[in-house]
């Protein structure tokens, strides 16, 4: 069964999946695409596009298996882990597994929309703003999900709500504080053993060191942990593959919670 992974530069959701792939050693054909050029919306050979079109992660990697487009980085990482007999990035104990899933859910629900918003404003808005109207309309016109399309439009127009920016900064800081607390007992990885929670948290937080350095001040445990994840051979090889300054690659992500 041939599997093709379309992915962006190793930051955010693409980094989660690439790192999980490198850790598990699953055999997949990798095809880099430019997420900020909207290339995710013109993939060939997709017979089953629900997850591609309606995934709430925004612009993340897409795995194509038998014509079915699979999305959502944490779930793709679980998929690779469950296919592989090598690494085990998920605890087998049900309670430890619950802790990991709960952690990942809170990261994807709270940190990732915040980090994506801030990262995009910092690094992607200019590129989108410089695009001709014609080119942007062509790109946006291919996006099936209306709410994802509107996140692209808002970013391009520089119409991001100030309250959301302020709230996003708070959410990033809260995530760092959460990590600091979790690592407080001297553990090496967030769940004790290395799991998908480390990859997912690292992938969304690493880029924030540049955007919000003050959130990491006096957070020695988190800073050391980020470094520990970064220097794992699997992660380091993924980051080195890209060559460029990976933390500058962003494309519209999940929406900020609209209800409760």
């Amino acid at each position, binding site marked *: 069964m041939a599997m093709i992974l379309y992915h962006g530069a190793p930051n955010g959701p693409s980094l989660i999946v690439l790192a999980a792939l490198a850790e598990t050693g699953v055999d997949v054909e990798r095809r880099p695409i430019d997420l900020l050029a909207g290339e995710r919306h013109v993939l060939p050979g997709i017979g089953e596009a629900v997850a591609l079109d309606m995934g709430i992660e925004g612009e993340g990697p897409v795995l194509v298996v038998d014509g079915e487009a699979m999305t959502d980085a944490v779930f793709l990482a679980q*998929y690779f882990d469950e296919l592989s007999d090598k690494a085990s990035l998920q605890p087998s104990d049900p309670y430890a*597994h*619950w802790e990991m899933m709960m952690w990942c*859910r809170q990261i994807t629900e709270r940190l990732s929309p915040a980090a994506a918003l801030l990262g995009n404003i910092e690094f992607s808005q200019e590129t989108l703003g410089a695009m001709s109207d014609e080119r942007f309309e062509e790109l946006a016109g291919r996006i099936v999900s209306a709410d994802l399309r509107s996140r692209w439009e808002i970013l391009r127009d520089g119409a991001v709500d100030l309250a959301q920016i302020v709230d996003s900064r708070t959410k990033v800081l809260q995530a760092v504080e959460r990590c600091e607390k979790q690592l407080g007992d001297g553990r090496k990885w967030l769940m004790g053993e290395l799991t998908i929670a480390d990859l997912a948290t690292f992938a969304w937080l690493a880029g924030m060191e540049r955007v919000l350095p003050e959130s990491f001040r006096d957070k020695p445990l988190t800073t050391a942990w980020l470094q520990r994840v970064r220097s794992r051979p699997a992660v380091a090889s993924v980051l080195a593959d890209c060559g460029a300054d990976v933390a500058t690659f962003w494309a519209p992500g999940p929406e900020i919670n609209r209800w*409760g």
Partner: protein
Amino acid sequence: MAQVTLYHWEPNANSGKPMLTLMEKGVEFESHYIDMLQFDQHRPEYLAINPQGTIPAMTHGSRVLVESTAIMEYVNEAFSGPELMPKDARDRWRVRWWMKFMDQWLAPSFSMIGWSVFVGPIVRQRDPAELEAAIERIPLPERRVSWRKAIHGTFSEAEIAESQRRVALGINMLEQELGKREWLASDTYGLADINGFNLAYAIPLSQPSLCNDEKTPNLLRWLRAVYARPAVKKCWALGRTDMVKRVAVLDGEQI
């Protein structure tokens, strides 16, 4: 075996997800009803269990668990009884994808509409000063905002319209997905169906023009199939409000 206690409101949405999962697994549990409309979830006794002040929460011996979908997965893994996750890795991915899509995209839209037409109007009858004090006790700031909107009926037209757009689109998506296979995410009944039923059981009643035997035959076939399960009957019998009695719409031969 360690005692299981579930703190839940009605068999509906997030509370109903672990309730039905426990019943499908055949796990005995102590049911601890938290009356959301009386703000039981923000009382100190409950905050001691879940400081976020949201329902549900589950204790298993000395362990405390929150996040309804993650609790469902825990229950499935920690107890014997029927397996509620498919074996195949891609099917498992699909279960997780659909649960997240429902939890984070579709359910909040149903919820916003539900709070504007059901929760708000009931709660709003009470003494305003008492309500304001109750809101002040809510730990999560975003929940304070939600409760204020529900109580004062201050949802914007645009946000309600967006929720309605998502509800209509979501009903279509469920219909199409259920046209592909017997159950929502794989060929076996499981967590995605339990999650989805909690979201969708009353749609034929709340959205009769969008969801009926003619327009959404697959969605109705699936709702009836889940409704026919003994665990569902047992679970919905724990409901105390008229809201969950809406499930009886599924008794109708032609909807």
